[in-house]
């Protein structure tokens, strides 16, 4: 009996040693991308295509390019259900496995991780969401709100309305209602809108909607009573479709509604269809881009091989494209880091942070990646972690989204002082100091 037990133990040890050694070899040239997603909960209809886009792009890079200069991409999803504590738990669990970056996919989780990221030396990429003040790289070394934040988005909307009215001064006396999700995500644009309301003389009416946003009857009754000239919708998940249904029920013209780039996607309007015709939303540079080259590549190299993360007809939709772009920015940051720290080597999080801070994607590079006509050039720097503030408006015509405006850029004159004062306030609260020029060079 003793001998067989000894043999069993030896066999188990040998098996475990074999598995350990093979996994050690396999980890030699892999860049691990953690994917915080929400496929359950009230925000799942919008979170799912985003998650599928993120994953499909990583699969595409592996299939089309063989990884980044030979370094294969691996990834793992972690379900957060948009809850801050679960997001923090996912971050802690995947922090040990990854040395790349995190896309929290939620403004609430971003707030929590912004405190932890500097201590853990982990960059956070928050494309089109997160803290608006984190555009200031002098204070927020580890946050990258690339392509836009809620302040740039709100700014572009006000500019668009000004253009529509024939001049920003024509906004005087108008009433703009902000129907927003009562969370850090929804409250973020208020500071900028109040500033612009003061400057141009329009009245800003704040109408919060309790999370998750399925109860909006009272809010839209208020809209009907006060009859604002325009309504800005700052919702996410089921709140968007509910808002449009309520707008239809109370008879508020949908063409006077302008949503943020998180409120302008197919899941929000698909069920209502023609009822939401005329609804406008911000487009974070891209819209629904089924004809773009990157989508064709994904359909050919990922979906046709049966590797797609979601349904085929989702490919090319607005939020799917956003997921693609976010993954693309992460991959390009790693590639840029490799240019400095060693091509074909696995990058550490600090090196990826440098890559994010020195991104220089010109139109030629974007076209080569397959994003021709989808994105404009992005160029980040030490002080500017946003890279590009271009946006445009797209409109739902009942069956699809199509662009209805030119390109706008956020007004730096108004934004720069606001961002600087918000960043300084954050630094004073957390007892941080602004980065030195020497630190920018590292």
């Amino acid at each position, binding site marked *: 009996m003793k001998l067989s037990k000894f043999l069993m133990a030896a066999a188990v040890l040998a098996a475990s040693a074999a598995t350990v050694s093979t996994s050690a070899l396999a980890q030699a040239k892999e860049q691990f991308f953690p994917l915080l997603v929400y496929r*359950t909960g009230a925000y799942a209809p919008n979170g799912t295509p985003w998650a599928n886009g993120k994953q499909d792009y990583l699969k595409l890079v592996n299939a089309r390019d063989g990884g980044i200069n030979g370094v294969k991409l691996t990834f793992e999803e972690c*379900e957060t*259900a948009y*809850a801050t*504590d679960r997001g*923090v738990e996912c971050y802690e669990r995947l922090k040990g496995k990854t040395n790349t970056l995190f896309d929290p996919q939620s403004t609430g989780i971003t*707030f929590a991780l912004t405190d932890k990221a500097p201590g853990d030396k982990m960059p956070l990429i928050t494309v089109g969401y997160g*803290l608006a003040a984190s555009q200031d790289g002098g204070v927020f070394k580890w946050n990258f709100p690339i392509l836009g934040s809620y302040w740039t988005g709100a700014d572009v909307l006000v500019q668009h309305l000004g253009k529509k009215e024939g001049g920003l001064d024509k906004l005087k006396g108008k009433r703009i209602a902000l129907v927003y999700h009562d969370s*850090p995500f929804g409250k973020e644009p208020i500071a900028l809108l109040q500033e612009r309301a003061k400057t141009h003389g329009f009245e800003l009416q704040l109408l919060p909607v*309790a999370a998750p946003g399925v109860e909006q009857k009272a809010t839209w009754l208020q809209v009907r009573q006060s009859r604002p000239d325009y309504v800005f919708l700052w919702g996410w998940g089921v709140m968007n479709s509910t808002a449009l249904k309520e707008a239809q029920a109370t008879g508020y013209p949908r063409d006077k509604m302008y949503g943020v780039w998180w409120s302008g996607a197919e899941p929000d309007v698909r069920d209502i269809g023609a009822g939401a015709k005329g609804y406008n939303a911000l487009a974070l540079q891209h819209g629904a881009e089924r004809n773009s080259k990157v989508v064709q590549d994904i359909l050919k190299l990922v979906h046709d091989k049966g590797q797609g993360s979601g349904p085929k007809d989702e490919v090319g939709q607005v939020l799917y494209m956003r997921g693609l772009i976010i993954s693309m920015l992460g991959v390009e940051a790693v590639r840029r880091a490799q240019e400095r720290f060693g091509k074909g080597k696995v990058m550490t999080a600090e090196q990826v942070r440098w890559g994010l801070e020195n991104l220089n994607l010109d139109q030629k590079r974007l076209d080569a990646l397959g994003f021709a006509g989808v994105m404009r050039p992005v160029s980040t720097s030490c002080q500017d972690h946003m890279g590009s503030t271009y946006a445009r408006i797209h409109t739902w015509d009942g069956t699809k989204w199509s662009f209805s405006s030119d390109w706008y850029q956020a007004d730096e004159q108004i934004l720069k002082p606001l961002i600087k004062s918000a960043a300084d306030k954050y630094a004073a609260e957390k007892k941080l100091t602004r980065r030195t020029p020497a630190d920018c060079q590292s």
Partner: protein
Amino acid sequence: MLYRENGQFKTSYRQDQQIFGITQDRYAILGIIAFAFLAVPFLADEYLFRAILIPFVIMSLAALGVNVLVGYCGQISLGSGAFMAVGAYAAYNFFVRVPGMPLVPAIVLGGLCATAFGILFGLPSLRVKGLYLAVATLAAQFFSDWMFLRIKWFTNDSSSGSVSVAGLQVFGAPIDTPVAKYLFCLSLLVVIALLTKNLVRSAIGREWMAIRDMDVAAAVIGIRPMFAKLSAFAVSSFIVGVAGALWAFIYLGSWEPAAFSVDISFRLLFMVIIGGLGSIMGSFFGAAFIVVLPIALNQFLPGLGGAFGLHISTATAAHAEFMIFGGLIVWFLIVEPHGLAKLWSTGKQKLRLWPFPH
């Protein structure tokens, strides 16, 4: 055979009134506490601290508070999240607005504010019972959701509604590493658990249990229902408020009102039901179960499914968590209403005879 009190004679009243009468129990508990304080900081890695141990310690404290109210006094409460929120925001306001306020007094003051809030929303318990009381405490939950979203003063006029704390230290020792956070929470847990255990063994505890078992008979023999019920709400809210302050300060660091939504109230109730109503030990079992189960499912379900050839996505694992919780609650309520703690004490009873068959 081993777990017997042969030869252990109580020769004084003090010995007779010990919490752990059996020597083996006493040594075991002291051993566990010593292990938790001295050995775990060296054995556990950072992920284990941040994701499992610290939430477990804080949630056990909260479950302890809820158990005092639901398990010992029999007043069903679905507003525990609100008490945690009040404790957290009150501690935050004291910490941030009063210059130089130390951490522990801020947390204790947060607990006292939660006590006041708990007594206020415990007043309906004097008139209603059972399900109706649960609804009244649910009102407390929604009121607190509204209060911290709409009244800007509580969130220090933050534009985003999200608040955070930094620079926590106790007598100069900073609480920033996972080990320090764990030890700080554990110390508070041990002190409060000891106080609570003594409280439920005392006259007040017996009053609570009398109210729970048969409130009319309790009133007849001279126990004042108002005092008993409101004191249960007060003590419970204090403990839950301190746990809420710890949850916000130590675990989350930066939080918004949605962090204390009705989900956390349900989780606490589940912890107490699964762990064991009316048992101090049950709070620990329930908290361990509820904290560890989602993480364990996330880690093992995909592997388990893979062994059977099924691809388990993260969404399926999240849904499975709900299904398993629901199934377990129903099972526990039918088969073993006294929860895991009763299973444990039944096991201990059997241990007294082991290894002899009868």
